[in-house]
Each structure stands twice: as structure tokens, then as C-alpha cells.
């Protein structure tokens, strides 16, 4: 909170004298005050404005102070609440405290006491928001899984993140779905001087055009049907921090034009508004689409692409970096075991082989889900091949039929080929033979690659 920002107070009391007295008193003290006679009006104002402190009278006709307190706890969890009560209802005030009120004060107020109480609430509030910011930034700094890995490709990704994070450069993160693009955005934000401010994420592909516009740029009250209150957009929320535009390839041509303008001018005009609001943000965008070919096809604006494509970080799919599978699997195993309070959990050697052989079309996310499932449904401390979802139900994996050694070998090779998506190099690696030997066996057993995989 900057010194110039006034402390905003909401007074809710059905008695005119209380509203007038407190309103005048706080105003003289340089606070911004709104005074309303009912809980209903208080809820309306809270939906519309941000307050630092609310003083609620316990006894009011209609919804009383305690019920209002409960509703405010949901509507504005950050709001500091002080309950005002007459001497007779101190028990009620104690209930309010148990319900999470900051304090209560008995009428009539000693100006000295009220003044101290408000000062304390002010300090408490700034401490609390400072703590939250610190906690969030610490969470963001915790090792993101996407960056686990020792393959040369991931080393390159790690180096790029480390060198670009401290700058203000726009970053475009590309990669198949499930590769962990959002985690890369988090790592960039966490490594930047903006880390104590917000990282604001927008999943552009999930929202209809109109909704996306007001989500990104905000809107003024009455900008469209249903816009009952003004709303701060994500760009404004990211002021001082980073905005992460996920699935940027899904944005409509109209929103692309507006995005380009905001990125160039660093100001946002709310939908239905006239006044451009300057905001200081850094952009990290992500997509699983090939933006360059979309530009060639005229589906994505070239000027916007150039704006976004200052630094590109490509996260390779897991199947391109099999060396990372085992460290990632162990990383997730440790994490889920810790969450479930299990000790000395490990993979059986066959499970490791199966993990390495799997093509992981769903990338890191699929691997994470598989390990979580195995820890929950399997029989730890040892995770066996049977505990992995694909070893039993992998679609298209031929069953081993017959008891002859030949049949078993044929079935096993077919299964590994299926699991590696007929990647001969990897299948040979998993089987422990060279590629020539594997080709010979494929011909000998007349194994055929399925028409479409």
C-alpha cells in the first residue's frame, strides 16, 4: 500500500447518528468512508468497491451484523471486520470474534480507543497482504516439474529461462499439451524482479470472445447486459507483475488487434470505457499450435506474432527426451509419497522399463497422473509394472498368447513396439538389442506397424 492511497472504510449501521458521526470522524482523519444503513446495501457496495476495513453494527433490522459478517467473509475474504456493539450484547461480539472478526468495540467509543483500533487494523492489514505476497512468491519459486530433467534439450530450456527471466522481454513458450508451459511461465516470473507482484494467468482458449475481452481488458459498469459493476481486467491486475496468456493461438482476430494495441501502448481501455489506464506488465504467452504456419495461413496476425516472439522457449515432448523420464518419474514418486506420508517408496526394475518404453503422448502431465494413480491405487512401497495404467490397458498392445518361448518373444516385442509407437531405436533400447537384430525379429515374426497410430 502506498502512502498516497487512502484507507477505505465501510460503516454499516441503521442509526443515522452513528453513520454521520463516524463518517465525519473518519473523513477528518483522511480516510475514504462509505456509510450505509443496511446489510443489503453493504453487500452491494462491497461487490462494487474495495474496502480495507468494515465496521458493522451487531443489531440491525433484516440481516444482522453477524450474518453480514459471514456473507462478507465469502464476498471479500480480505476485508478486516470490526463489530460495533452496545454494552448489552457483548456475548454477540465474542461470537463475532470466533467467527473471524478482527475486534469489536463497544458504544459509545472513546475516540482514543477507536483511533488505536483503526491504526492496529491498518497495520494488521498491510502485514497480512505483505505476508501473502511473500508466501505466493515462495510457492512460485519452488522447483517446477517442467524444469526437472538432465537431457540436453531440457538443459537448454533451463538456461534460456535463467537468462531471460530477469529481463522484461516478452517470452513465447511453445510445446505440445502437457509439457508444462504454465510451469515455465511461473519459473520466468519467479526469477524476475516482478516476483513479489502478481502472476496473472488467462486461459485464452477456454473463453468466448466477448468474455475474453472483458476478462483481459476489464469493463465499465453497464458496458453490456449483465455488467452490473465495473471490473478490473487481467492486464490491470498484472500491474507490476506478469500476465501469462495461455493458448494464445486460440484468440480471435478481433481480440488479436486489441492485444496488439495493449502490448504496444502499455495502456488498457476497459470495455465500455473511454479513459486508457496505464499498466506495467510483462507478457509470457504460450501455445501448442504452430503460430508461424498460422501466420502464413492468415489465421494469426503477423505483427502480433512478432511482438510475442521476442524470445521463444520450445519445450520438447517427453518422447524426444527419454533420458528425462526416469528422473521425472522419481521426482513425482517422491512428491506423492510425501503427500501420502509414505516412506522408502521405489519402482520395480520392470516398472522403470515400462515407463521408459511408453510413448507419453500426454507428456509430463500424463506421467504425473500415471505416478499419482500408481501411488494411490498400487501397493507401495514398491511400484510395479501392474500399478501403471498403460501396462494393463494400453490400447492396441497385442496380448501374449501361447506358452512357447517363441510366442512369448513375439508378443513381448510387439508390446514394446506398440508402447514406443514403433520407434525402432527406442524399442531396441528397451529390449536391449541393436536395431539390426530388432529388424530381423520383426521380419521373422511378420510384425506389422498398424496403419494409423
Amino acid at each position, binding site marked *: 500500500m502506498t502512502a498516497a492511497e487512502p484507507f477505505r472504510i465501510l460503516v454499516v449501521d441503521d*442509526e443515522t*447518528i*452513528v453513520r454521520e*458521526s*463516524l463518517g*465525519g*470522524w473518519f*473523513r*477528518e*482523519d*483522511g480516510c475514504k468512508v462509505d456509510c450505509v444503513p443496511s446489510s443489503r446495501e453493504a453487500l452491494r457496495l462491497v461487490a462494487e468497491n474495495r474496502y480495507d476495513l468494515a465496521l458493522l453494527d451487531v443489531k440491525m433490522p433484516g440481516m444482522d451484523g453477524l450474518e453480514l459478517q459471514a456473507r462478507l467473509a465469502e464476498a471479500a475474504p480480505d476485508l478486516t471486520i470490526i463489530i460495533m456493539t452496545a454494552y448489552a450484547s457483548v456475548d454477540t461480539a465474542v461470537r463475532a470474534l470466533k467467527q473471524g472478526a478482527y475486534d469489536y468495540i463497544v*458504544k*459509545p*467509543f*472513546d*475516540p*482514543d480507543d*477507536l*483511533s488505536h483500533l483503526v491504526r492496529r487494523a491498518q497495520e494488521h492489514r498491510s502485514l497480512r497482504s505483505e505476508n501473502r505476497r511473500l508466501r505466493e512468491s515462495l510457492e512460485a519459486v519452488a522447483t517446477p516439474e517442467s524444469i526437472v530433467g538432465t537431457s540436453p534439450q531440457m538443459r537448454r530450456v533451463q538456461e534460456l529461462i535463467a537468462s531471460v527471466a530477469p529481463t522484461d522481454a516478452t517470452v513465447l513458450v511453445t510445446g505440445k499439451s502437457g509439457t508444462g508451459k504454465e510451469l515455465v511461465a511461473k519459473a520466468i516470473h519467479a526469477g524476475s524482479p516482478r516476483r513479489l507482484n502478481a502472476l496473472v494467468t488467462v486461459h485464452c482458449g477456454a473463453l468466448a470472445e466477448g468474455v475474453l475481452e472483458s476478462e483481459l481488458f476489464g469493463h465499465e459498469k453497464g458496458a453490456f447486459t449483465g455488467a452490473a459493476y465495473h471490473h478490473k481486467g487481467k492486464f490491470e491486475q498484472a500491474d507490476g507483475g506478469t500476465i501469462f496468456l495461455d493458448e494464445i493461438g486460440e484468440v480471435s482476430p478481433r481480440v488479436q488487434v486489441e492485444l496488439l494495441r495493449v502490448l504496444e501502448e502499455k495502456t488498457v481501455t476497459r470495455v465500455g470505457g473511454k479513459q486508457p489506464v496505464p499498466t506495467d506488465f510483462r507478457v509470457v504467452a504460450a501455445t501448442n499450435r504452430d503460430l508461424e504456419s498460422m501466420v502464413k495461413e492468415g489465421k494469426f496476425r503477423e505483427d502480433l506474432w512478432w511482438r510475442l516472439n521476442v524470445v521463444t522457449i520450445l519445450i520438447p515432448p517427453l518422447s524426444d527426451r527419454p533420458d528425462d523420464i526416469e528422473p521425472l518419474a522419481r521426482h513425482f514418486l517422491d512428491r506423492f509419497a510425501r503427500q501420502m506420508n509414505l516412506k522408502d517408496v521405489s519402482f520395480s526394475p520392470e516398472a522403470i522399463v515400462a515407463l521408459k518404453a511408453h510413448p507419453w503422448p500426454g507428456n509430463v502431465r500424463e506421467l504425473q497422473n500415471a505416478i499419482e494413480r500408481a501411488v494411490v491405487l498400487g501397493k507401495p512401497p514398491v511400484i510395479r509394472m501392474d500399478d501403471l495404467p498403460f501396462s494393463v490397458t494400453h490400447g492396441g498392445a497385442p496380448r501374449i498368447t501361447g506358452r512357447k518361448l517363441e510366442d512369448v518373444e513375439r508378443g513381448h516385442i510387439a508390446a514394446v513396439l506398440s508402447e514406443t509407437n514403433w520407434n525402432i531405436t527406442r524399442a531396441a533400447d528397451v529390449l536391449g538389442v541393436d536395431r539390426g537384430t530388432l529388424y530381423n525379429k520383426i521380419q521373422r515374426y511378420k510384425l506389422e506397424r498398424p496403419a494409423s497410430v
Partner: protein
Amino acid sequence: MSPSALSPSALAFRAVGAIAQPLLRDVVTRVSRMVGLPCRALALDDEVRTASVVGRKQWDADRLLAELEMRAEALAVPPIGAPGTVLVGLAAEDMGNAIFTHFFGRARIGGGAVVVSVARLSPTFYGMPDDPDLTARRASLEVLHELAHVAGLRHCTLPNCLMRLAHNVEAIDLRGGAFCAECASRLPRHFLAG
């Protein structure tokens, strides 16, 4: 806010309740040294009647102020008085309202009157020996603080400024007797002496 519209041009002091005349004169003298406005003491024998706060031996500060503002209107009209004359009531009794236990002084921005109660300004209220000089000094500074509110000023956060909020006598004594440069610059011309 246009300062000229609220700018006080003269001050008329009167006792409210059992205020000793020497105390009233002392306060008038002190205030007249600090402000650049003509000051005079009204020798009136009419009682200012006002309600007490329900259940307390206290005058209702809001009603008292409203009563004085009403009387100030007459003072603002020639030939009785001059436009912009502010009525300063020095009250003997303690005052408060339904919401606050007490007030040292009361005024509204742009209002025609201020009221300051000497009850809690006297050391006798805190069980100490009487000190009329100290009481008069505190009362004069409270009057000046309230007059600055009339002239449009709000509270100031600087520790040594007269416009700092003070809820007890220690705070009144600590903040001293002068406006900070910023507050002084916001006051209308001629408000301050010199």
C-alpha cells in the same frame, strides 16, 4: 473547495455555561495573538440551552454546535456583526454524543461556529492541581485547531502540527502550537497573524 467561501473574517467568543470571565478573556487574548482576524468577547447573559447525552452527565456536542451555528447566523449580518464572523463557544461542561464518549472540540468544515469544552482540558479533571494558565493555553490551541477545520483543513499526520488528531491531553500538549508549512499554506490569507 473554495477557501474564500468559508474564510472566517472575524471571531466572536462567548461562554457556554459556567465559564469564568478571566478564562474567557485569557483565551481571547491568546487566540488574537495567533490569528490575523479581529477577536472580541461577547458579554451575553442569555443561556445556551442544550440537551444532554442520554444517560450521561454530558452535553450533546452535535446539538451544542448546531445551536451555536444558529446564533452565529445573526452575528454574520450587519449591523450586529460582519459576514464571515465565526462564533467560538467556550463550554464549561464535558461534551460527547451517542457514539463518542467525549470531544475536546467540535466544528464543521465551512460551519459558522466552533465549540471547545474546557472540562477535560483542565488538570483538575485528572485529579491534579488547578492550572488556569495551562487550561487557557490548551483551550486556545483547540480553538485554533477547530477554526482551521472551519477553514477547510483536515487532519495532518505530521507529529508537530496543530492539525494532528489528538484524543487525549498528552497528545494535545505534544503536538505543539503551530501549523506545519503545508497546513499553513492551505489556510486562507489573513487567517494567521504576521
